[in-house]
Each structure stands twice: as structure tokens, then as C-alpha cells.
């Protein structure tokens, strides 16, 4: 099994989610995160004090997937999350040893 973590622009989330549903991927966990990278932030001024906000709101999608599905999911995300502008985010893949469904102790890919 693979764990796919995708950091994306919040404004793209709805489209990504819908696209994933279409290819039959339902299970995911979403985390509100703040991202720092090439994308420049903006400055805010409060009573003359300037702050450069370089931590920008992003959404992180975490999906544990059967190896078979990974490529398809990656492609889907790449397609739907892309705006072409700096800050579109990343996809990271890493191995997962085991998955267990709490409800019924099911294990392995069938737990996903």
C-alpha cells in the first residue's frame, strides 16, 4: 500500500474531490495546513506595522491506496489541481506497512 499526500490550493479542492469520486476513490483525510515555498505571500499592515505573510493556506489530502490505484490517482490530482501558477503544491508518495479498519478489524487493502 502507498500513502499519497497531496498539498493543494484550497480553491481546487472541490474539483479534485469530485474527480476522485468519479474514479471511485472515496476514502481520504483532509488537513488544513499552511504552506511555505516558492510562492510569494502578501503583506499585511496593522497600524503601520508590516507583516509579510509567507505561510499560505493549503489543504493536504492524505490517501492510503492500493498500489494498483496510485498512478491513476496521481494523474487525476495532477489534472484537477493544476492552475499552472506557482503554489499549486506537491504530491508525495510513501510506503505503508499496514492498514486496519477500526470498525471491523479488517486489514490490508480491503480496509481502505
Amino acid at each position, binding site marked *: 500500500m502507498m500513502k499519497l499526500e497531496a498539498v493543494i490550493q484550497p*480553491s481546487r479542492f*472541490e474539483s479534485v474531490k469530485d474527480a476522485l469520486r468519479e474514479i471511485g476513490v472515496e476514502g481520504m483525510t483532509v488537513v488544513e495546513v*499552511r504552506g511555505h515555498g516558492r510562492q510569494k505571500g*502578501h*503583506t*499585511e*499592515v*496593522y497600524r503601520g506595522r508590516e507583516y509579510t505573510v509567507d505561510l499560505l493556506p493549503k489543504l493536504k489530502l492524505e490517501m492510503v491506496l492500493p498500489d494498483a490505484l496510485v498512478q491513476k490517482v496521481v494523474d487525476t490530482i495532477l489534472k484537477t489541481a493544476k492552475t499552472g501558477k506557482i503554489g499549486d503544491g506537491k504530491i508525495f508518495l510513501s510506503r505503508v506497512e499496514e492498514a486496519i479498519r477500526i470498525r471491523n478489524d479488517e486489514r490490508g487493502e480491503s480496509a481502505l
Partner: protein
Amino acid sequence: MHRKEAALARAFLIAVVFLAIAMFAGTLAAQTPPVAADPLAKLDQRIAAAQSSADNAWVLVSAALVLLMTGPGLALFYGGLVRQKNVLALMMQSFALMALITVLWALVGYSLCFGGSGGFLGNFEHAFLRGVGAEPNSDYAGTIPHMTFMIYQLMFAIITPALITGATAERMKFSGTVLFMTLWFLLVYAPLAHMVWGKGGVLNAALGGRFPTLDFAGGTVVHISSGVSALVCALYLGKRTGYPRQPMPPHSLVLSFIGACLLWVGWFGFNAGSALASNGLATSAFVATHFASAAAALSWSAAEWIKNGRPSALGAISGSVAGLVAITPAAGFVAPMPALFIGFLAGVCCYLMVTRVKALFGYDDALDAFGVHGAGGTIGALLTGIFASRAINPIYHDARGTALPVGWLDGNPRQLGYQLIGVLVAWTLALVGTFVLLKIVDLLVGLRVSEEHEIEGLDITQHGEEGYNLEA
């Protein structure tokens, strides 16, 4: 576009500086002489003074309450309904109008609304508030200082344009908003206010207008004008990016709830204060206001309960606002039971406007400024013609001073016709005026923000700040 804005900013500064000088100049002009004591009837004068103090206390409190309606009332009601990234932008628009309209009012606005006795617009008689002092202006309010009347009316001029921001929410530039509202106040609000409430105004029922339209506290002047203009703005600006596919739930109904409650309470000043005295009529308007709000909250909730299987807090507060809007023109003319009825009807109708009609036509009246104020104001204006009663407010007399019937049920069916005329005039002026002004402002500084800015949010892009910084 940015160059244009910089230009505007500079223009604004120049204007402001010029203003300062104007004010300075004004300082002498505006210094009104103290009240000259009538030597004949000292006693009589003391009674008049006591009466004046009593009425003045009530109208001053009412003025404060009406300001409370805009800030924080309306600002919270609207601010809570938008997405988090636009909350300050909405609040800022209301606040900016509190400041902007006030200065315009002092310079020329009041005079354009209530100066002279023209049929369609005031004059410059009271520019810089010349001649507005402590003595009453018997045409408008015989027992309170003219200046009290002036400041009270100002609060209405502030909230009216602020209501429009509910339709332009989440996508209109701040620079464009400021410019548009300035023009709208001078060219749409002022004429309408004068026609309905100003001496000699063609629609003025109290001071012998050609088409006496009953509008106790602003059904036409405030709600139809703002509501209909809101519709035009929504159509002109187009939908928010992602609307309606993308969900845009209110970011904090808690804020909206607070705002709605403050609107309800403030509305007592709005309607009961419009009696311009602390008398039985004020009480009657107070009661009608409260009853209509309650009945409308109930009927909107009932509609939701039937339709969705459960009533929502948003529904209840929306209903109450709808009821308050509808009773505004009627408050000082109808008995408590008709007030309940008007509210009840307004709740259901506005519910349908907001849930059905809007969906049907598909315009993006973001916060339902038209659905509530346009529709509610129109309903209220017409029902006023039906339920207005001389028992509550004997506004018409014959030569011998005996009260004549006022509304239809009271025996004066023609009133409904006059109400219709008033409504049509208000709709027309709002439709045409707003459209023209939007075109102009669009050319000068632009109306809509770029899509990136819209996605990033107006708080950051228009004001360089965020409503919440909770990651501390």
C-alpha cells in the same frame, strides 16, 4: 487599473484637504445664535421646554439606535454571512459609509434632502448646515431642535447605501464602492428622500404632496431604493466566481445572529423614533415594529419547518429582518393586529423570494439585499395603503380638522393607488439611477476585483488585513 486607483486615492486626499478648508470656512457660517426667549409667556415657555426635552431625549436615543443598526448591526449581519476571507471587507464598507455619508451630509446632503421646498430635490439652503440650530424646524418637527432632526435623518442616509453592500458582497472593489456610494447617495437617495419626506415633495403625504404616499420610516426611501439598486448591482456585477456550484456557507452565523438582534432593537429607533416625539404614536410604532418582526420570524420558520423538516436560526433571523422591513412604512399608521399580519405575510413572501425566485432567475444577490429589502419594502408599502388607520395616525383632515380615512380598510381606497405610485417612482429611480452610476464608476475606477483577488479574498487584497489571526 492600479494607476487609476492611485489617482483616485490622490483625488480623495485632495478632496479631503479641500474639505478641511471648506469646514474651516464653514465654522463661522454655522455658528447659530442661542434661542431667543419669548418674553411674553415664561410659563408657557417652560412647559414647551419640558416637552421639547422629553421628545429630544427620545429622538436622540433613536438616532443612536439607528446608527447602532449600521455599526455594528448590519456590519455583523452581513459580515457573518460571507466567507471568512471577506468579513472585514463587508464590515469596512458599512463603517466607511458611516464616515463618508456623514461628511457629505454636513456639507450638502442634508440640504439636498430637506432644504427648500422643491418637488423633486432640495436646494443648498442648509449647505454646511447653515441655519440648522437649536430652534425647531416646524415643518418637520415642531418640538425638537432642528439639529436633532438633522442628525436623526442622517442615520437613515447612512444605513440605506450600506444595505446595498449585501448584493455586491465578495467581489466589488473598495475604491469602486466608495465612488459609487457617494454618487448614489447624492443622485438617488437625496431626490427620493426629498420627494417623500421633504417639504413640497411630490410624494409627501404630510406636507401636501401631489401624490401623497404614506411612508412612515422609509419603506420606499430606504428599503425599496436600496433593495432594487441591490438587484441592479447584482445583475451588473455578475455572479461570484464559483457560484452557485461551489458551496459558500456563512462563515459565522453567530455574528449574523448578533447583528440581527441589534437590527431588531435598533429598529425601534428607526420606526418609533420617526414619530419625532415621545408620544403615543411613538409607542404605537414601537409595538407595530416588534410585532411584525416576531410574526415574520415565525412565518419564515414555519415555512422552513414544512419545507426542510426543521427551522434554522438563519431562517428565523432572516424572517425577523423581513418583517421589520415590511412594517417600516406602516409602523406609524397601523394597529398592532395588522402589524402582526403584515409581518406574517412578509416572512412568507421573502422566504419565497430568497429560496425560489432567486434560484429561478439565477442572479447572485449574495446576501439577499433585494430579496429581503426590495421585496419586503414593496410589500410593506402596498399593505400600508390597505391597513393605515386614522385611529392610529389622523394624518388627513378636512377643513374643520376632523380626521379623514387614511387607508383602504379605513375607507380610503385611493390610498392604495398613491402607494403604488410611490413604489413605482422609487423602483424607477433606483433602477435607472443605479444602472447609470454603475456604468460611470466602472469606467472611472472599475467595479469588480480580479479573479485572483476574489479567490484570495477582499480582506487581504482590498484592505491588507485579515479578520482572524488565530494561529497564535
